[in-house]
């Protein structure tokens, strides 16, 4: 089987074959966005999470009528797909009130296309005790509403089991990603990102055998052909591996990522002991590290610099979605911080839909050349 093709096919449609198969088996798909939503809670007792994406969206003409054209194109694309009925297979969705754009997407979806079950989580902007307590309560309310609506069991034992399975799954993905650290990696950033995105787009259990096979095969796989530079890839939501593919086709191998939809910090293990809801609240509130969190700029900036050094990256590429206020403002500060640390850095602005390929290639070529590679 050509795994690359197989995974690529999975990413073509939110209701992919694995999703349909799970539904035929009686499982219930619940959509979610963004990384602050604890997908573990949607992986319990017959539920399974589907991270909301709009692959191949051709345009957002309908959505622009409602959200306007100055809202981030990820949310506009989701609304377009929603209005097109592409999420009709979902039996509900859970959003995080993480930014203005997602909040307003939720408001518009509530008015235009409300599913049987919908909820928006009130995510604090801080990570202290009061905030974690608040989010714990918020998740308890989510658990109650899921139980009330779907009749599923979100008790402590069920959640703890789901956390264990989640950790086990992420451990496989993480182990695959570790191969990118090597001086001569055998997996590209594009291939790896495809696996990570597929994990959010499909019932995880169905992917375990094929991911384990990839993990087993990687040590014996031939190293990649020579590349020009090792890059750390930073930014918010990116669910199209094709974007990384273009960068890598210019010789910039993405050896590490720090994305909302990537391996760091998303694949860290969740504590398996104690109250599972409290553990989930703390984990999801503290691990995502989005610029929407106040008070933590220095940690975020240092994190990028440390990761770049850890992965021996020659340079850092920051990609931000146009109209994203939090990443837009913070990227300007990240840029100075990374440059002051002596690491070459490139900032790219993009739309959700992959476009402007020629410009992207030129920017990447120039960046790699500016590093003397």
């Amino acid at each position, binding site marked *: 089987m050509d795994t690359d093709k197989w995974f690529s096919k999975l990413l073509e449609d939110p209701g992919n074959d694995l999703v349909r198969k799970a539904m035929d088996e009686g499982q219930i798909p619940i959509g979610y966005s963004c990384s602050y939503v604890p997908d573990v809670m949607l992986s319990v007792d017959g539920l399974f999470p589907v991270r909301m994406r709009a692959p191949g969206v051709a345009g957002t003409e309908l959505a622009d009528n409602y*959200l306007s054209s100055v809202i981030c194109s990820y949310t506009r694309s989701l609304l377009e797909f929603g209005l097109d009925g592409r999420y009709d297979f979902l039996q509900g969705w859970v959003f995080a009130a993480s*930014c203005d*754009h997602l909040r307003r*997407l939720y408001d518009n979806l509530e008015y235009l296309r409300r599913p049987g079950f919908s909820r928006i989580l009130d995510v604090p*902007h801080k990570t202290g005790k009061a905030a974690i307590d608040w989010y714990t309560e918020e998740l308890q309310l989510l658990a109650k509403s899921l139980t009330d609506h779907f009749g599923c069991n979100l008790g402590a034992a069920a959640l703890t089991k789901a956390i264990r399975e989640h950790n086990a799954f992420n451990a496989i993905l993480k182990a695959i990603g570790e191969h990118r650290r090597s001086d001569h990696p055998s997996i590209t950033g594009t291939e790896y990102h495809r696996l990570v995105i597929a994990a959010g787009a499909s019932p995880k259990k169905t992917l375990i055998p094929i991911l384990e096979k990839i993990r087993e095969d990687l040590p014996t796989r031939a190293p990649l052909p020579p590349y020009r530079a090792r890059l750390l890839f930073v930014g918010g939501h990116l669910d199209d591996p094709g974007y990384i593919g273009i960068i890598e086709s210019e010789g910039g191998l993405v050896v590490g990522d720090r994305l909302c939809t990537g391996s760091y910090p998303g694949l860290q293990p969740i504590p398996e002991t104690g109250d599972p809801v409290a553990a989930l609240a703390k984990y999801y509130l503290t691990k995502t590290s989005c610029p*929407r969190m*106040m008070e933590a700029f220095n940690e975020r900036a240092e994190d990028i610099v440390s990761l770049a050094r850890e992965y021996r990256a020659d340079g850092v590429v920051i990609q931000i979605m146009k109209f994203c*206020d939090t990443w*837009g403002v913070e990227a300007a500060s990240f840029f100075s911080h990374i440059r002051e640390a002596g690491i070459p850095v490139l900032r790219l602005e993009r739309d959700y839909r992959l476009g402007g390929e020629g410009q992207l290639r030129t920017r990447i070529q120039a960046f790699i050349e500016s590093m003397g590679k």
Partner: protein
Amino acid sequence: METTKPGLSDYLEFNKYRAINLLHIGRMAAKHGPFDLLRDLKRYPWIWDLLKVNSLLKRLLVGRSGNYRTAVAMVIGGVVDGVIELLEGIFYRSDRLILHEDLLPPEIFRAMGLQPWVPELLGILLPMIVPDAMQKYLDAAENEGIPPDICSLPRATIGMAMKNAFPNALAVVSSNLPCDGGMSSYTVIAQQMKKPAYWVDIPFDFKSERALDYFAGELKDMISWLEKHTPGRMDWDRLKEICEKRNAMAELELDIWDMIRHRPAPMAAEAVWMSHLWCFNVNPGYEASIKLLADLKSLTEKNLAAGVSAVPREKYRALLWNPPTLHYIDLMVWAERTYGVSLILDSMSFNRQSFIDTSSPDSLLKSLGSIIMQGPMARHTRGPAEANYFPDIFHMVKHFDLDMVWVAGHIGCKNTQAMSGVLREKCREAGIPLLVIDYDLMDSRITPKEGIQEQVGNFMENIMKARRLDQ
């Protein structure tokens, strides 16, 4: 109802307030001394623009007469007086100066004996006086990589911080209000200022007791933090006194709002919204604010008793949603004279907050917390829109007997832009004419005033079937 045209007394009134403003400025200059004044004019070049305040007075009084004219002049005079006091805070009380985000409660800072300075205030005031005043700051921020699509208020504020235009404060206090752009701007501002910063977190779904407890806890933590990082100490008796005065202000404002429900309205536009903006957002709990609102109430009562309409030939009553068009602040002067449009109330002023419970420190914090969470640009940017955004619009239309909704569709306000589609459908269903003005809050290069006039004119003539009064 009768209407009035400007006469000799109106001319004299204008000159009276112009002289009063100059007197205030002259007194500040004399107190500060020529050497220090010149030094500070160099340090804070935006003061030059503030000194041109009488040009604003002139633009806002054109064509207005009687008590309405006096009321608008009084409000501008009140702002001048207050700004001078804030400037004196920079000049003489810098050892207690803090910068705080514009929606945080100045009542608390003042009760702590601190001298608050709102960085966004200049971004609001300056373009009213000099329409292109903020362009250099917007450009400065963009040149340093701040995206041009971020709301121009935080963008200009970042630009001011980058150009070292703010006073050297002890600390910076911010929050996640009113929007992501505003919240994010303080990361940059705090870095530029190189000062300790504290952020207050306001829940999204703010109406529950749980949210109120959480936010009151945030305010308590903010007070502790300020006590650690500044010489400020909380004086609960002082806070109680300030809040009691704020309650008195709210009573006066409610009386004015009751009177402007009358058709045609005895008071309108800046006399209503600018007084709210200044008194409640910048100067709450001040004797000067109580006096200003009491005087406005008295003028409104006089007009009502005499059957005088604020806007001559009031033909249409409008709700303005979103902040007013700062770089074309005399839009309503033009709309009044051209189409007989009276701006009755706006989203920045209207609220349904309860009075502050001054019985204990906890009740003070909870009440203030509630006011912030339910305040303008707070409730409308959080909580489900179905519960907080549309109901306010439709309540205002009904309660104040309004004919149309004007949305000042500031291109950088993503919260508003993203609701325009649904609002359009809901207004259509309700039979309420809706105008969304495409423009930028403070950058006239995006849409100049002529472009705004054209949009309003098209709406008035094609949708409202209005005839121009000036032809």
